[in-house]
């Protein structure tokens, strides 16, 4: 098993005809993902290396049965692209695009919640998600992940996620699903959503969580873990020594007014029984111990 996506997932790429969309869409197809469609209102009826292009997500869903959309549209168009995807009938919208204005994110997050409550949003500004051996949607290098289980991964950071997948593979540990929730202020899918899904997934027996400074998502996850998660969780938090008031790359990664520090997040998670690695490698080592003891 895996969460959110599996071998039956069919993906439509909004922006498949653009350079980034084409590059990653084809890489995802090479991985084995069912990339069934792309959209571009001006290029409907054409194809990208055999992948048919439709005018809208609704058309693509009707013709191909796509149930997930992956958005590679430039930031200015993301708000309407997300709404088009939800209206078009997919179950999951994955937004890779970075640089989406906060007010657009806040709008479409709440719009989906109100009008399309069964549609899951992942991102924006996220690397996507991969269920190794089954489907890879987004910009993760599929070959650095070992298929199977027993570890599920959820992360706010792209490269640190790859690092985690790679280290686990080197230790011969598989991953059920790895979800990059992204580093923006209004992530469509939260740590808690992923933790809840991993808790339900019989194949996932332990969870690796990678957080960073800013906001209180890790603290909220800690509360959720204490009350609802029976599986062992290992965490790493980036930005322990980040100076206050500076955005560290991601729009959401900022310590402000003494809030959102890495130390507070680590303390909250440790109090919830989560084992904390002081570096990404140490978190990998701890996870290896956890897996060996399962």
């Amino acid at each position, binding site marked *: 098993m895996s969460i959110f996506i599996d071998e039956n997932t069919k993906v439509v790429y909004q922006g498949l005809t653009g350079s980034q969309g084409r590059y990653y869409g084809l890489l995802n197809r090479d991985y084995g993902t069912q990339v069934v469609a792309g959209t571009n209102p001006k290029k409907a009826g054409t194809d990208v290396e055999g992948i048919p292009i439709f005018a809208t997500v609704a058309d693509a869903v009707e013709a191909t049965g796509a149930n997930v959309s992956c958005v590679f549209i430039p930031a200015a168009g993301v708000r309407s692209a997300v709404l088009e995807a939800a209206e078009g009938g997919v179950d999951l919208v994955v937004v890779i695009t970075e640089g989406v204005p906060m007010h657009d994110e806040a709008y479409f997050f709440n719009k989906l919640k109100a009008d399309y409550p069964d549609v899951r949003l992942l991102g924006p500004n996220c690397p996507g998600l991969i269920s190794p051996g089954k489907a890879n949607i987004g910009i993760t290098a599929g070959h650095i992940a070992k298929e199977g289980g027993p570890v599920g991964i959820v992360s706010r950071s792209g*490269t640190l996620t790859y690092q985690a997948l790679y280290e686990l593979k080197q230790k011969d540990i598989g991953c059920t699903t790895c979800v990059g929730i992204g580093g923006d202020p209004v992530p469509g899918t939260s740590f808690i959503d992923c933790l809840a899904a991993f808790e339900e997934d019989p194949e996932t027996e332990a969870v690796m969580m990678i957080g960073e400074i800013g906001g209180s998502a890790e603290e909220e996850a800690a509360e959720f873990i204490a009350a609802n998660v029976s599986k062992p969780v290992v965490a790493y938090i980036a*930005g322990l020594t980040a100076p206050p008031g500076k955005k560290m790359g*991601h729009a959401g990664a900022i310590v402000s007014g003494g809030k959102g520090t890495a130390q507070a997040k680590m303390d909250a998670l440790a109090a919830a029984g989560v084992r904390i690695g002081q570096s990404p490698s140490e978190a990998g080592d701890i996870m290896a111990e956890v897996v060996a003891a399962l």
Partner: protein
Amino acid sequence: MDLFEYQGKQFFASYDMPVSPGEAVTTVEDAVAAAERLGTPVMVKAQVHTGGRGKAGGVKFAADIDAVRTHATNILGLDIRGHIVENLWIEKASDIAEEYYVSFTLDRSAKKHLGMLSAEGGVEIETVAEETPDAIAKIWVDPVNGLAEDQCRQWVLAANLNPDVTDQTVDLLLKLYGAYTDGDADLVEINPLIVTSEGRVHVLDAKVTLDGNAGFRHDLDPFDATQPRDEREAAAHAKGLQYVGLEGSVGVIANGAGLAMSTVDVVNQVGGRPANFLDIGGGANADVMAGALEVINNDADVQSIFINIFGGITRGEEVANGIIEAMNRVDISSPIVIRLDGTNADEGRALLEPHLSDRLMMAPTMLEAAQKVVALAEGTGS
């Protein structure tokens, strides 16, 4: 991006909110001329991207032109929490009867907009929140529905303001919410929002942070031009690199914001001091690497450089070739330690091998690389 007070007021004025007439100046002569045009009394206010201006002596009342000259002379060049005052805002003075506080920002937990309104303005809201939390009326606004007038009125009533100004305040707060959303602000704060002795509700201060991501629908250039940025940050910004200047001696280059943050952490953990945070993004090709090395190389405080790359889709060979080519283009003055891992890391390391020297080293893990690069920065390594 943070706006100066005067820019924030111009921003509010463009949404039809009542602000005082004033002029932004950079010299004592212009301050005097502005005050003569406006008519005394005026306020002479330092324009800096930090709080605590009043306590630092950066905000003064000037009853006449002589006082304007004295205050402008004293305030220009003043150091307020590390910010040197270069700009002044000369504003017509107001008669203050009451001081309120109001702000809108995103509540990241609730994923809704949070409005805070208090009859206890003029002091830091953190202090009010700590000492008299009940004095702050909060409202959560759904971004889809926006702020309705009756909802806004309930909120104003809950804040226990002077009942005579309820209508005016409701009107102003609806405009403020409009400025916040339509103007793509991350934060709008008015502290104090005043009631004048004639009973008019008026914006006396403005703290506005605009969302740099919304540049495709607003002209942010005038605000971008006044951002405090050290030379290193300006150079990196021009190359499109994600750079934050720090105060240490170890230059840091990594791909990905998380890895860059993690690299800064590990340098600190082994007792070093990072000179910067620099995220070159996913690609790590020669152009990007050369640009990053140039920025780091121009930082006189840098004694050693840590390049930390994890290859994902970009393979180790490409990363290695990028580094080798970048080093041919840039004359680097500090020794470099590379940690290369991920896709085809072995192939990449093999390519780097012939280039290794006491100026270019490799380490297998982040921790070992950090120890080596910190020793080099302190002149104890080799």
